[in-house]
């Protein structure tokens, strides 16, 4: 109602990798949109997924809880999930909620792609 809907763009990287670019507020609806895209990729064989949040400036704890569910699904599949280009406050919020203990956070996309071999 007050903000634009979250937009998610997918970029495939090789046979088993992908980057999800988000733009907008990650709330419950935005989180579900990211999850839908991520689950489709994971079910299609993607085992290395990078979420680039460079155009997301606000998140809430409900949206992050959905990101945790994506991370759990990737962990169950034995794959890798990471985040990059977070604002300082979003990075801090990820740390508070413990997400950073289970998924790497990269300052920029280049270092994330290098680490993930994408």
């Amino acid at each position: 109602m007050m903000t634009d809907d979250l937009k998610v763009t997918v970029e495939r990287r090789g046979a088993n990798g992908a980057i999800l670019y988000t733009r907008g507020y990650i709330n419950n609806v935005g989180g579900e949109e990211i999850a839908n895209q991520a689950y489709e990729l994971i079910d299609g064989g993607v085992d290395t997924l990078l979420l680039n949040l460079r155009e997301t400036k606000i998140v809430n704890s409900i949206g992050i809880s959905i990101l945790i569910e994506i991370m759990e699904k990737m962990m169950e599949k034995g794959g890798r999930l990471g985040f990059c280009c977070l604002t300082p406050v979003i990075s801090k919020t990820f740390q508070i909620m413990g997400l950073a203990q289970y998924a790497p956070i990269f300052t920029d996309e280049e270092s994330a792609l290098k680490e993930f071999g994408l």
Partner: protein
Amino acid sequence: MTQTAERQMELTLPMLPDVEIAAAKAAGNLGRQLGMDSDAIDEMVHAIVEACINAREHSCCVDQRIYLRFRGTAGKDGRPRIEVWITDHGRGFDPAHARAHRAIAPGRPQKRGWGLQIMEAHMDEVEIDSTPSGTTIRMVKYGGGKS
């Protein structure tokens, strides 16, 4: 604004999806007017978002409203300060009980129940006054010069 100027603002918001963004934008505008740095504004915005979501999700109030009051000052030390009160007329909650459920489950991050902790991490002061007739969360954020 001058160093001793004070700005006050009140908002009454309906408990609708994403209404927290209206509160966040108002707080952000006030912070910029006072010369608060962008990181401090972002932290304040995220804390206010969580407070509004908690009110909307858990207060069960009959009037379905969130009442916000802001007081912004630029002190003699040049340090902007924003004080915000977020009130609902719901059933209240026990802050001690909420804090007791913060632990991270072994091996997996806990998904929900982080709102209060996020508020306390992002703000300089957080006080909760909760009774069976409503809750007011008072928070204070200090910010440096313009970034």
